[in-house]
């Protein structure tokens, strides 16, 4: 079950970190978690107006990645073609619905959607959270994540990526939070999974969030803190053998923008199988940002 990105050393460290936070929680009489200290709401989309997502906040990334300069499959051998059609993305009954369909479209066998706040809402630091009900099934790979707004000048991974929530549809009780940067990306990223003990992520809505400051990124699910990433940690985790001098650099100190998407297939989840039911939808009740 262990997520393959995690190495043992990371996990041990995480346990220590969580243990430390547990102590502080134990002493905290009002049960206010450290992760949820920021309460000044600066952006919220409650998805209360039916139709296309609010164009003042969201833009679409369309296609298979080639238009964005990536190899087909968004650099991960993903199988979907992203569109802005209501079949793939719409707001209805108070939720944003992002749907992966099995259909032939522009040379792909699946369609889906990927929306971002690039150029419309970008923020450095703060608390980013979304309340989401996830789909399920082998090959379904939804995510709620942030990218640094300078990837055109400082190509990934130098521009930084904060994956607030990623999920594989064939592991319906597990989500994971990850950061990517120089020397710690792809298979060497710093990541941790969070497993529900008596529930699943496709049965109901759950809140996924981070609180991000100058020297920390705290990950939580439904108010449970499960990962704290610091400059010291990424420096220790980074692979430095033969890598550039900036391997392990903390790059999470500039504005980032939000991305929501549902990928189909790709290197991480593998392709859908015969048991995968289509369509599959991710339901987003809200996206909120505090500082």
């Amino acid at each position: 079950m262990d997520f393959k990105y995690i190495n043992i050393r990371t996990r041990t460290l995480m346990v220590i970190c969580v243990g430390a936070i547990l102590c502080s929680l134990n002493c905290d009489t009002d049960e206010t978690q450290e992760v949820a200290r920021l309460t000044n709401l600066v952006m919220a989309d409650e998805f209360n107006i039916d139709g296309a997502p609010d164009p003042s906040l969201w833009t679409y990334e369309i296609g298979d990645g080639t238009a964005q300069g990536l190899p087909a499959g968004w650099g991960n051998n993903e199988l979907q073609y992203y569109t802005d059609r209501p079949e793939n993305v719409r707001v209805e009954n108070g939720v944003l619905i992002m749907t992966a369909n099995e259909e032939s479209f522009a040379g792909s066998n699946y369609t889906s959607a990927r929306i971002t706040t690039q150029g419309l809402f970008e923020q450095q630091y703060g608390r980013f959270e979304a309340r989401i009900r996830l789909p399920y099934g082998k090959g379904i790979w939804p995510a709620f994540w942030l990218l640094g707004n300078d990837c055109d000048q400082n190509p990934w991974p130098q521009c930084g990526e904060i994956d607030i929530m990623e999920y594989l549809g064939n592991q319906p009780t597990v989500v994971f939070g990850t950061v990517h940067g120089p020397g710690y990306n792809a298979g060497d990223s710093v990541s941790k999974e969070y497993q529900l003990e008596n529930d699943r992520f496709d049965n109901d809505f759950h809140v996924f969030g981070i609180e991000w400051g100058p020297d920390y990124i705290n990950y939580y699910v439904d108010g449970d803190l499960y990962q704290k990433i610091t400059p010291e940690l990424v420096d220790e985790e980074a692979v430095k053998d033969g890598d550039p001098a900036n391997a392990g650099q903390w790059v999470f100190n500039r504005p980032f923008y939000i991305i929501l998407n549902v990928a189909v297939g790709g290197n991480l989840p593998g392709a859908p199988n015969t048991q995968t039911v289509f369509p599959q939808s991710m339901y987003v009740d809200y996206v909120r940002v505090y500082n």
Partner: protein
Amino acid sequence: MKNIKLFKLNKALALGMIMVLVFGCERDVTDDAVPATFPNTAEVFTDAPVGLTDNFFESFNPAEGYNTLDTFEVVDNESYEGTSSIRIDVPSPDNPNGFLAGGIFRDRGAGRDLSGYDALTFWAKASTTATLASVGFGADFEQDKYPVVANGIQLTTNWTKYVIPIPDPSVLVQERGLFSYIAAPFDVLGDGPNGNEIGWTFWLDEIRFENTGTIGQERPQIFNGQDLVQEVFVGSDITISGLGYTVNLASGLDQTVFPSVNYFTFMSSDTSVATVSESGVVSVVGNGTATITAKIGDVSAEGSLEITAEGAFVNAENPTLPASEVLSVYSDSYTNLSGLNVGAFNNGDIAISTQVFDGNEHIAYENLQFVGVGWDTPIDISGYTHVHVDVQLVSAGSSFIVELLDFGPDGVDNGFGDGSAGGFNATGQLIQDQWVGLDIPISSFTNSTGGGGTGLTTFNNIGYVIFVSNSGDVLIDNIYFFNN
């Protein structure tokens, strides 16, 4: 993360205890309002049976091949957890005491309240990577009201946990059937049951009911999830088939089980056209269109049946000859031949059923290539000139041939040494969707038959009436011999 959860749990428990202390003495609900409840004991077997009947393992019927002597044992040399497990030795095909291992475990009391659980779970390992034919719960040898089975559970040589979902736990408020299994010899070569299978062994441990919370994507099914459309007659009955229930487990894998019909609630979109009984039988009561759907609990089932009824079924005309003047094979107006079998032999993919309208039964053959209507003792038709058969052609343009087969003086179906067979081609007389009464002279059965007959020349030991078609659908009624 786990620690945090435990911490919260402890807090919740403490809070619960405080609430018990505070509110424990309040009694604002009368005793009369409290329904009788049964224990909710989860464990079925840990290191020993938990609350089961004294005989613990109760075998399925030995007459069906179940071995009651050699298969079941609690052992101390193997276990997933604790000290003991259940060892089941699946017999070889030639075991004189039976080749199947299977039975149930029953609650020793009046039953358990399982409504707080969402799955039966157990651990198993096997001597080889064989498949458990079925495993489940709900069979109690009494009412068998809520059985559920999963078929084809692939075991491994390592201890592995298996999860059998409960379709609607809320109905299991007094359940005695706590576990059931069936295992057959291992078909190593995968070439079907032919006696070359081998015996094998598997172990079961930690059998219990659990509230896992990790079962999702409940998908009940009727008609195997298909949306069927059918034209029917008023007065006909249709049994809802293809019942299933699929969920997605925490492992990400789907698990399908086959629940009793009693887990389902059936609905008709128009009860003036069709009604559905609790046991899943659709009764067509009026003209029009109705859609039959189902649910388990609040979850709608995949699959439906849309029926359109256009009037009542018209039965074949009743024969008017007195019984003393006919030799009847099959008719509601007379006595059928003893041991009548409307499918004594037939092509493999035929569908044979009998249907009753207004108390009058007829036979329906679908995809008919050949079928023999047989009976116990050969009959002498030498005193009769004709045979009568009522036929309704259902499929357009199909051929229809009637054959008679005589066993000969030895009275045995052993070729045409002493017997004979002949056919009569009635294709040209049939009218689609209408009953046609064929009165065929016995002397007309002169055609060669599919079975090698060259014409009917013997008449004292008729053993079969045979119908032949090119995969057509026909209805048959009132087969009798008479004098014209």
